[in-house]
């Protein structure tokens, strides 16, 4: 009785192990072995729509890429931590967190393409009377993370309006919590990426004080970054990824209505909100190196970037060789 049972159990175990082994190697899954790429992106961030489009329209697959989602993150610094740990190969992330981590030597990444410019807003809560950025003096503003694009947009806006950033209280609130916090008047204002500003308007949680395109026209926002060692080992893969990304970006530019419908699928927002949000975003794939350099300077002044030679740093950060035309 005991012996028989042992044999049956052992056989079952071996069978299981064998099956799992096959599954792991992906054996028999298809004719051509695709190149695996571990990708990260931000949760509910409409700037990164190109990723969803490329995935759903099969652009990645056409390029022979097997996309594994390495994680969804609630803000840039989280995603950069994953790069730091070697968990991601390519990611859609804000340019500011990428600069922060790269300059601290915490993550070795290169910007290989841009995802969007503009697309953020400063929101204020319903009861707040401020009519312009100067009216934020003395109030509390929520940002998705320290040293994020939104953080710098806020400071830029304040400085332009002649307000000392120290006169405004910045708190970090994750974007999903921002709208409830605004409605409940726990924060007075928030700086956040689409679709949240459009959602706020639709829900009456807050109104838009100013669009980021008016704070700094065509400011770079989300980028496609890749781990430097991954680029070194798999330049062809990176090229193909960028190609799919470019294709998706063009698709969004040419088919905004369909893109808005797709956005609705991935961000959980209804099509109307998605459409209105997309109006504020400019999807473009070529990074503006001068604008990025301006970011780096700004962050150097803030003490976040330590490099003695910021322009050299910027040059080293951006790698345009994979873009169509081989970089401009």
């Amino acid at each position: 009785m005991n012996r028989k049972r042992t044999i049956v159990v052992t056989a079952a175990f071996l069978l299981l192990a064998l099956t799992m082994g096959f599954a792991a190697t992906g054996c028999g899954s298809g004719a051509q072995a695709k190149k695996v790429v571990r990708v990260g992106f931000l949760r509910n961030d409409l700037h990164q729509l190109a990723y969803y489009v490329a995935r759903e329209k099969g652009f990645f697959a056409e390029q022979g890429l097997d996309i594994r989602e390495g994680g969804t993150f609630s803000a840039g610094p989280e995603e950069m931590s994953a790069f730091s740990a070697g968990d991601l190969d390519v990611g859609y992330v804000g340019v500011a967190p990428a600069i922060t981590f790269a300059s601290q030597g915490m993550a070795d990444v290169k910007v290989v393409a841009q995802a969007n410019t503009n697309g953020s807003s400063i929101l204020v809560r319903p009861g707040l009377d401020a009519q312009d950025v100067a009216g934020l003096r003395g109030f509390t503003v929520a940002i998705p993370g320290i040293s994020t694009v939104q953080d710098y947009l806020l400071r830029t806006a304040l400085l332009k309006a002649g307000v000392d950033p120290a006169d405004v209280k910045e708190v970090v609130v994750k974007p999903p919590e921002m709208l409830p916090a605004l409605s409940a008047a726990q924060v007075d204002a928030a700086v956040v990426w689409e679709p949240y500003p459009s959602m706020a308007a639709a829900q009456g949680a807050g109104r838009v004080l100013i669009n980021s395109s008016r704070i700094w026209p065509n400011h770079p926002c989300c980028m496609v970054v890749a781990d430097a060692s991954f680029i070194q080992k798999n330049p062809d893969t990176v090229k193909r990824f960028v190609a799919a990304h470019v294709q998706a970006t063009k698709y969004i530019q040419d088919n905004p209505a369909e893109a808005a419908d797709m956005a609705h699928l991935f961000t959980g927002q209804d099509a109307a909100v998605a459409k209105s949000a997309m109006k504020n975003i400019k999807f473009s794939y070529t990074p503006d190196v001068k604008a990025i350099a301006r970011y780096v300077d700004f962050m150097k002044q803030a003490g976040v970037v330590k490099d003695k030679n910021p322009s050299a740093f910027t040059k080293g950060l951006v790698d345009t060789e994979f873009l169509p035309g081989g970089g401009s």
Partner: protein
Amino acid sequence: MRKWKIISPLAALALWQVLASAGVLGRGTPSPVQVVKGLYTLIATGLPPGYHLQGHLIASLGRVFTGFAIAVVIAIPVGVLMGYANVFKAVMDPLVEIVRPVPPLAWLPLAVVWFGIGLGSAAFIIFLGAFFPVVLNTISGVKSVDPHLVEAARTLGARDRTILARVMVPGALPSIFTGLRIGMGIAWMTLIAAELVGVKNGYGLGYMIMAARDFARNDLLVAGIVVIGLVGFLVDWLIRLAERRLLRWR
């Protein structure tokens, strides 16, 4: 015996510094020297700049004590009653057993909706974390009270209320203290995690280490972790001190 206790931490520290100096540690790991410098930065400059360690400390301690105090004030009486009256226990058991397995942090999104991102939601999460160990240990403590003591009290004229207050509570106190220590440990851990999500006034130890992460400053991150660990240890030590004083009779 005391001297021997210091050897392994010191050795680990020395090893850590040696490895760091040799450049063997990954880019995410600062050296002990960097951590000490980071500690100084946290106190003097503050992280984010202008928000000093002292402020973060007070905010976190305030939150954890509020949630913990509420938990204890409710959990001990509930636990005593549940341990003493089987009917009450039968009624309360399903509630306790259904809520208990849910990790406190899972409530966070809901807590934020109910109480906002300030003290309220943090205190609520901490309350959930501390409540169950205290209740369960109180029940076990009450059940472990020698029945002869209860009978003796009755023959001396004690009624139910007196029995609860003057026999059950003191008798269960050793177990209650165990519950307090466990509850506080969970409360502290839960607090830090809850603060990572965001705090309204910009102060909190969990919030501080998240800022360190955002700035990619791992030296400040580890320094912050050291502070969190030390404070957790200190708070536990205080509870043990109170325990020793109140349980002198053992």
